[in-house]
């Protein structure tokens, strides 16, 4: 099976960035952040988002330097084949781990709130074929599907936020947490961040025309503002009882379910969670596929999907099946992989950019000398 990935344009890339920025950040994270560092954790959230946007900026610089090259060829050129393979192996582990975390939170959410008798197998059956199909259909299909669903996503999100504002009914204690606890909470919950490195895996498949970068940055900025707003509304709505409410985007709707006799409008947020989960898992799988192909360029694409599905199913079935384990996994194991997205990858990209500039300068000086 050969997957043909046609290029993504700036709008599609922007929408994928918008969607992926929400991954793992609007369900369990707000409750954990408030528990760790109160309302001040919002500052940490904004601070980490600056790094996330920084990754997009880094991608922008690299893409401008190497407009038609893939990240694999850039790595190979500057650091050799070994580093390239190691990098893409890290990509595979990174996105597989993220998918496991995301799936677990979503599964536990549905099990607790919709259908407690549901089995892991049933939910897997609902998700895996569709995300596989999205990934197999190619990047353009993924991008266009995201484009089609974007108005629904944006509409529901704004509705959730507006309704959530009516539920704000607390006077939180401000600045009661130490700087240390804020930083430590941020580091403990850094696992949901760093997803923007998917752009590097898609590098040669993204086609941004001149002047369209602002579209990408606008989507990223809008997503950041909306995520911070969801977190803030949740924290201001629940404050000291945040620990009782582990599903933020759902909870900000459920608190006002009596409002205006509209009935259980919290169901609307469930639609958002479902749509997001499909896209997040599909992007993770697609990035895994592209990275896998860089490690094993000669084997068929179907093996990358089968590998992802097999490892994914084994992990989610045997290791992480409840919220407690998922939180331990997200707080104690996953934060370490953030080193890759926020430290190792940027350092290598910087070195590649600098060495590229030095080579250029040397070339010019040699020409001048001649």
């Amino acid at each position, binding site marked *: 099976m050969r997957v043909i990935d046609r290029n993504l344009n700036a709008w599609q890339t922007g929408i994928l960035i918008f969607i992926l920025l929400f991954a793992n950040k609007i369900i369990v994270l707000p409750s954990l952040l408030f528990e760790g560092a109160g309302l001040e954790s919002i500052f940490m959230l904004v601070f980490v988002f600056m790094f996330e946007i920084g990754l997009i900026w880094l991608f922008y610089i690299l893409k401008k330097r190497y407009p038609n090259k893939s990240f694999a060829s850039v790595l190979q050129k500057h650091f050799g084949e070994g580093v390239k393979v190691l990098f893409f192996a890290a990509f595979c582990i990174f996105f597989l781990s993220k998918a496991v975390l995301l799936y677990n939170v979503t599964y536990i959410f549905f099990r*607790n*709130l919709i259908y407690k008798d549901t089995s892991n197998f*049933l939910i897997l*059956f609902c998700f895996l*074929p*569709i995300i*596989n*199909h999205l990934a*197999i259909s190619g990047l353009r299909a993924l991008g266009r599907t995201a484009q089609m669903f974007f108005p629904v996503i944006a509409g529901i999100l704004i509705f959730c936020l507006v309704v959530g504002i009516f539920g704000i009914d*607390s*006077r*939180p*204690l*401000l*600045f*009661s947490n130490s700087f240390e606890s804020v930083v430590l909470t941020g580091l403990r919950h850094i696992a949901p961040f760093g997803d923007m490195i998917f752009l590097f895996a898609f590098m040669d498949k993204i086609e941004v025309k001149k002047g369209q970068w602002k579209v990408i940055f606008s989507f990223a900025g809008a997503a950041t503002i909306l995520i911070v707003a969801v977190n803030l509304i949740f924290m201001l709505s*629940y*404050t*000291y*009882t945040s620990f*009782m*409410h582990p599903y933020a985007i759902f*909870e900000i709707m*459920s*608190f006002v*379910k*009596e409002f205006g006799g509209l009935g259980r409008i919290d169901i609307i947020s469930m639609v958002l969670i479902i749509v997001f989960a499909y896209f997040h898992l599909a992007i993770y799988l697609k990035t895994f596929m592209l990275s896998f192909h860089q490690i094993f360029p000669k084997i068929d694409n179907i093996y990358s999907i089968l590998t992802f599905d097999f490892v994914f199913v084994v992990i989610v079935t045997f290791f992480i099946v409840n919220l407690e384990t998922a939180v331990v996994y997200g707080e104690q194991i996953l934060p370490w992989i953030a080193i890759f997205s926020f430290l190792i990858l940027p350092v290598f990209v910087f070195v590649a950019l600098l060495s590229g500039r030095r080579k250029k300068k040397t070339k010019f000086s040699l020409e001048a000398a001649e």
Partner: protein
Amino acid sequence: MRFFCKQFFKTPMFLVFAVMIVLYGFSALAKPAEINQYAVVTALGIDKAENSDNGEGTSTGGADSVAFGGNILSDVESAQDEQLYEVTLLTFIPVAQQNFTEKYKVVNGKGRSVSEAIDLAALNIGREIGLSHLKIIVLSHELVETGLFKFLDYLLRNIQISSSTKVVATDEPAKEFLEAAQKLDNESSIKVAEHIMFNSDYIYSTESSLETFFKGTFGPTHVGLMACLSAKGKEEQTTPTASSGDGGSSDGGGQAQSSPDEMITQCHVYVFKEENLVTKLGERDMKRVNFVIGDYNNGSLVVENFSDDHFQDANLTFEIFDKSIGYKIVYQNGIPVVNIDTSLTLRLSEVEQNTGILQENVELFVITPQAIKAVEKKVKTSMAEGLNIMRENQSDIADFYTILHNDNRIAFHNFLDSLENPDDYLDRIVFKLSVRIYAK
């Protein structure tokens, strides 16, 4: 057909769909309908059960009520010294019928924990208990007064129970309260949860949901409020000679243990601090406290023995239309001075003259300056009494801790450090009250 088959096998999603139908479609057909599996609980009552009746089955509420005593499980019987809970569930058991009528049953069970008692109640009706539609939790005063926090953990952890579920105490067994509530609902559609929601809008009461209670309990002041309701019959509350049949509302069907003219009334508000019951506030006291907090939208206030150009020794009743409350804080010698600035928009709604003569409505458009002064004095007195209630009970119901902390964190914590006992901070804060009255 051949084309169809080709397309079918070429499109993987069709295959997935087919597998899904085979795997889940047929198994779903074989399962009993969910409507027959669940009992939807709309109200939950918790009582302290007496160990002595472990060996006896209990029967409550006649034909519509079924009970599950502690006599089935031997381990419950043997637990003579342990605390037993009796859980009463007002359940809606869905039955497919042509007409749409909701049929409720009162079910109960006893256990060493709330969850065990609920399980035993579920065994009695042979259905799984669904708490997602729970609207109200009723706790008997016995439990509330002896150790509320021992069994609240279940309510805290249960993900099915919505945080907006109302929680109230009752001055009678919760079981009896729910039976009376069921009867009221059947006869007059008076729903207890709606009752609480309505009351909380008034100055005499407080919001009493799981969320507000836990928010107060886990907040910096650790003060939680819980409303108390009663569903006693009128003759029990007022005159012993009152007949129960005068209102014509009795049918009871020969099953009700309670009085036929029962009404739900608010008794008082329980105040808890750090897991202990501190005090009970009556309607008047709650009104005084609410003047300080500003947590109300409706209510009225009475100025007694008022005299001016129009009235002589009259009792004036004002309806509150709008209110705003602001706190300004200054520090004098390290001691916080809290200025509570209240604005009230009122309308004179009733005049009770001592002469008993009905007069012309002379105050149609304005409230006289004398009346405004009298109202200001009345509100200030009420607020001062409200502050005294908080001070006497060392319960910061208004959450001045957060207000002062957010205003000037360093100055407030220096003030706390300067106190021998930082918990006494309410006694040391200076309050200044200013009230502005506007006529509607």
